[in-house]
């Protein structure tokens, strides 16, 4: 081998330094992340058992369980989705298929951008004034669901709009050339093609809603009994899992231990991991389809 070969590999000191620093930074970030997750699971998982999952906090027996919070979280999330999906998807269809570029459109876009930057406690304040008081819903799951719907509106609209826009434009052209109207094209081609994106939007929104606490404290309140009648439960106040973690530090529900907030946090984190996994699966579906 000729040592003077012009193709010989040379070592650049600056590359080595930068690479080392980058690895170090990534390592620290990973360490912190896994440290937090590990700590929470370590503290919380031992406290999770069937009674913990299936009972309500009881003053009489001084026992603790999160069944009402699980029900409230599912209830409020489903309700919020029912409110936001027609509005959000409809809005996205309008923005991507019907609206003409112009001042009003950029105003709508700008507003949606702003909405996604507002801190959630501000949404809570708005929800308390608007839904709880003005619309007279009281501290209720319904008021909370409306507030959550508002919070995820930008996610739903933007993600759906993006996926509608990314549908092969030649499909629109072909459909147009066959004399079919826009609604038919949207229903038969655009929405099915955009479906993976819409599902991703739903999953992202669910993640956001499950983790929300500040906005719900001011709207759906902090009650933690099991609902008597599920059908009318939307009128009641009810704490979600995330709200309950906050309550563990303020009013300390009966029967809770120091491990309780960690146990709830561990469950929330498992849910979030599961949602991320689902997004990943759907994402793979998009690439394949």
């Amino acid at each position, binding site marked *: 081998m000729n040592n003077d070969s012009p193709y010989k590999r040379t070592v650049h000191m600056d590359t080595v330094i930068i690479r080392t620093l980058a690895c170090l930074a990534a390592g620290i970030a990973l360490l912190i992340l896994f440290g937090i997750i590990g700590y929470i699971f370590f503290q919380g998982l031992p406290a999770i058992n069937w009674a913990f999952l299936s009972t309500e906090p009881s003053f009489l027996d001084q026992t603790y369980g999160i069944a009402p919070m699980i029900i409230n979280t599912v209830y409020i999330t489903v309700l919020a989705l029912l409110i936001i999906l027609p509005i959000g998807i409809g809005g996205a269809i309008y923005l991507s298929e019907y609206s003409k570029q112009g001042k009003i459109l950029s105003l709508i876009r700008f507003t949606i951008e702003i909405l996604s930057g507002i801190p959630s406690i501000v949404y809570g304040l708005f929800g308390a004034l608007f839904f709880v008081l003005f619309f007279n819903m009281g501290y209720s799951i319904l008021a909370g669901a409306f507030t959550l719907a508002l919070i995820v509106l930008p996610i739903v609209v933007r993600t759906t709009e993006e996926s509608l826009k990314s549908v092969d434009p030649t499909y629109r052209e072909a459909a147009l050339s066959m004399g079919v*109207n826009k609604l038919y094209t949207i229903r038969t081609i655009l929405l099915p093609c955009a479906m993976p994106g819409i599902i991703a939007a739903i999953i992202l929104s669910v993640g956001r809603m499950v983790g929300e606490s500040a906005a719900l404290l001011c709207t759906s309140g902090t009650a933690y009994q099991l609902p008597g009648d599920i059908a009318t439960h939307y009128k009641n106040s009810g704490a979600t899992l995330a709200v309950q973690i906050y309550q563990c530090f303020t009013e300390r529900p009966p029967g809770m231990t120091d491990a309780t907030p960690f146990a709830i946090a561990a469950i929330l984190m498992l849910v979030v991991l599961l949602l991320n996994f689902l997004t990943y699966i759907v994402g793979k579906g998009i690439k394949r389809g």
Partner: protein
Amino acid sequence: MTIIETKNLNLHYGDNHALINVSLSFMKNEITALIGPSGCGKSTFLRVLNRMNDIIKDVRIDGEVIFDGVNIYAPDIDPMRIRKNIGMVFQKPNPFPMSIYDNVAYAPRYHKVKKRAVLDEIVEKSLRKAALWEEVKDRLKKSALSLSGGQQQRLCIARAVALEPEILLLDEATSALDPISTFKIEDLIQDLKKTYTVIMVTHNMQQAARVSNKTAFFLLGDMLEFGDTEKIFGNPVNPKTQEYVSGRFG
């Protein structure tokens, strides 16, 4: 008999005068080829004929397009109905991401054909017309995207003829295909002429000479020469046409 004609047609994209005073008439059951160098306005002209330019912003169209005796740009005309009668096939095969059957049945379903037996019949007839039936009859429920490029393009032709249009517009419909698929589609076009009127854009001079009855030569938005294909390719009047068809520019 004239089936569609343009009278003093001018089209502007913003400031770009893309079609200049084009007057052309097309005969029923004939194949007309539109030729000319890239950017001369062939696609634009083709899309004027079924109002496909309506969706583009800043387009201004003056003049008349007379189809079946009416000006299709008159204010009381529904462009959807025009497009139903004037089908189009594009350069890139663009079947919908659904089954072969659903692709062909797509427009008939919209236009209120509901009965299964009638749909089946339309699908078979259209696929036969597009010379695709034998190849796909056993896998009508399979995704259209599983077909080869040439088959996909014939499927697009089947999809367009499923509505029994009077005119079929083809915009470089074979330019993305291999020679064998191209010949198949050329044969097919010859066949389609019995029932339809075909107007096709092509960059392939041999194809225009082989397939068409009439040829129109476009240059920079002007329609310079129009006549029998033999005349345009054998003995054109305009020296520019002569230069183009003999391959000296374009």
